[in-house]
């Protein structure tokens, strides 16, 4: 076993895990604030990719990267106002059923709009080369995605920690009823949070499109790992999502290298283990699942 291969897998695990971090952050702020388990997050991820395809024809990749997530965020806000808002405060099962149904319906919308076949989509030319990392040659695009998501995490952190709006969002995750009592317009807060969460899903979709291709089912394959990430990290926890995403990426990568037979199972095993030892997740607050 060469050290360079081990390091390559470790690095690749971090890079692939970053996409889950992005997905999990959106899920976790929605779940933390409104208590809704958003199963339509996966299909909104796919929407991000499809809108990127549409927009990129006019503006190129970077226009799509900028605009497509905004469109998805707006769709998210409309969905929140029209449908999701109706299940707040009800049994979590209602939210689950609603967003699950929404996911299936929206996937059909993709099939009707763009067909069942996948669509070709490539990274911009200058990012389709490789960079010598000494341990291996790594696709420039994947490195760029890694760097971009790191920057985004920093920006999100700044927003949540240092701005007033961010503080309200965090307070909402802690106790949205109290935030309402204190005079904050929770209706607007919830819509905004749902929009931010779905914006992140759309962004993850755009970033993933050049790597894995665009297809109607692309959301199905990321939704489960994303839920596992927030269960690992703890619902509502910012650093929990980051840690959980990285853990998942690294564990799956290393399993593929050393024990490929359990690669698919490994994430579920880790989740079961964490739930046994610490049901609230590594960084979770007491109360949500306890």
């Amino acid at each position, binding site marked *: 076993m*060469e050290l360079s*291969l081990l390091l*390559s*897998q470790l690095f*690749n*695990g971090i*890079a*692939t895990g970053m996409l889950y971090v992005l997905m999990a952050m959106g899920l976790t702020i929605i779940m933390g604030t409104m208590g809704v388990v958003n199963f339509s997050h996966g299909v909104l991820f796919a929407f991000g990719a499809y809108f990127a395809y549409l927009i990129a024809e006019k503006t190129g990749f970077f226009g799509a990267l900028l605009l497509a997530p905004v469109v998805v965020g707006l769709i998210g806000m409309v969905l929140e106002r029209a449908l999701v808002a109706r299940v707040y405060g009800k049994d979590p099962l209602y939210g689950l059923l609603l967003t699950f149904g929404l996911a299936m319906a929206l996937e059909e919308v993709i*099939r009707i709009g763009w*067909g*069942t*076949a*996948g*669509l*070709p*989509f*490539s*990274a911009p030319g200058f990012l*389709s080369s*490789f960079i010598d990392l000494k341990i*291996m*040659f*790594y*696709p420039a*695009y*994947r490195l760029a995605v890694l760097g971009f998501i790191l920057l985004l995490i920093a920006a999100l952190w700044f927003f949540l920690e240092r701005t007033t709006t961010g503080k309200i969002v965090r307070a909402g995750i802690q106790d949205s009823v109290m935030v309402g009592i204190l005079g904050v317009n929770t209706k607007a807060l919830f819509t905004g949070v749902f929009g931010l969460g779905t914006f992140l899903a759309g962004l993850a979709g755009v970033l993933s499109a050049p*790597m*894995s*291709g665009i*297809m*109607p*089912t*692309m959301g*199905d*394959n*990321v939704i489960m790992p994303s839920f596992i990430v927030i269960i690992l990290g703890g619902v509502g926890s910012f650093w929990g999502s980051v840690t959980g995403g990285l853990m998942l990426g690294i564990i*799956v*990568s290393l399993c*593929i*290298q050393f024990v*490929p*037979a359990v690669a*698919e199972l490994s994430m579920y095993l880790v989740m079961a283990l964490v739930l046994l030892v610490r049901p609230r997740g590594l960084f979770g607050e007491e109360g949500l699942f306890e």
Partner: protein
Amino acid sequence: MKEGKGTQVSRRNFLKLSGATAAGAAGLLTGGLSGLTAGPREVFAKEELKVGILDPYSGPYADSGREQTNGALIAVDEFNRKGGAAGMLVTTFQEDTATNPGQAVQKGKKLIDEVGVKYIVGEVSSAVGLALSGLCQEKKVIYMSVGCHSDDITVGDKAHRYTFRPTCSNTMLARATASYIADKFGKKWYFITSDYSWGHTGRDAFKKVLAAKGGKVVGEDLTPLGTTDYSSYLLKVRNAKPDVVIVSLYGNDLVSCIKQFNQFGMRKEMQIGGPLNGLEMARVIGKDNNCGYWGMPWDITVDTKGSRTFTANYKAKYGKLPSWRAFLGYIGMHQLLSGIDRAKSPDPKKVIVALEGHSFDGLKANKSYWRDWDHQCIQDTYCGRAKSGAEVKDPDDLFEIVAMKKGVEVAHTRAENPVKLEAL
């Protein structure tokens, strides 16, 4: 999809459906009405021939499923235009299997028990095809396993008397493709294999050819169906430094893997190939990433009169060129209907007898025929090279056939296949 929604409502069908009762009273009186091309006598004479089409319209193989169904409907049109099969107009009932054996069997039972179909045509996934094959044998319903390539469909104890396979087996594809790859690009191979029946038999068929040529397996991995990120697997492959990576993946899985193979710059380091690739995937892979050597049951570049006609008819109806999935759907449905025609009866037993041993124009250079002892369609089998970059002249100009083997050269021999089909 609702029952009968896929029904091809030709003018005659429309007459039959909407006018049957009215025609009963009025038919005799208006017998001479000149506007009706199908005379009232024909309206009375035509019976309905119900054929079930089971293909995946959702899930990872949705696109292939749609193409197969489209191809099958071309054959239905062809028969209905000349008055149907054995004098009966063909009505199709389409259901979505979603590449799920459980769902497929449930839909199959519905078609057989509730709609009353005696024939089922379709399916992409061999795992689903094997489940349908078992069901149809039990229900005494003919099953045209249109696009299932796992050897098991016609080899060994899972093969059935009521099941026919219009496409090549994995072994046929591997023998046509693997020897070409081994001779040209080297004999150190790494295997990435989709973890189910089709993937396994594809890999095994390639391994057999490799062993016979004295080659070496330098590594292998099984990947779950629906995998989207192959980067960790590709890092392993690169580290093993094979001459060729043999990819037994299909549909979205194959698209993701080949895209990432390109992204990691591995195209300069090794060759890629496998049992199957085709237009509907290559279009998504994109011309810049399109690469490798692949088994193909057919291609639009097969230059025969039959192929040209089929391609033109398909283009006229759907506005795009057919993939080999569409070809298989056409052949499967066409063979079933012409079998019914020759048997002059809708009785599945008689149709089976009419099909067994029958030789026909399978739109290829050499004649195709149904082997009576395993129900494998013996036919020309191709190795295609995926074109890329500047050599791609139009969006569908994505493959070039580089090798062709006659069916008998590549199919299992009787000694290799211990099958014993049930008595009728």
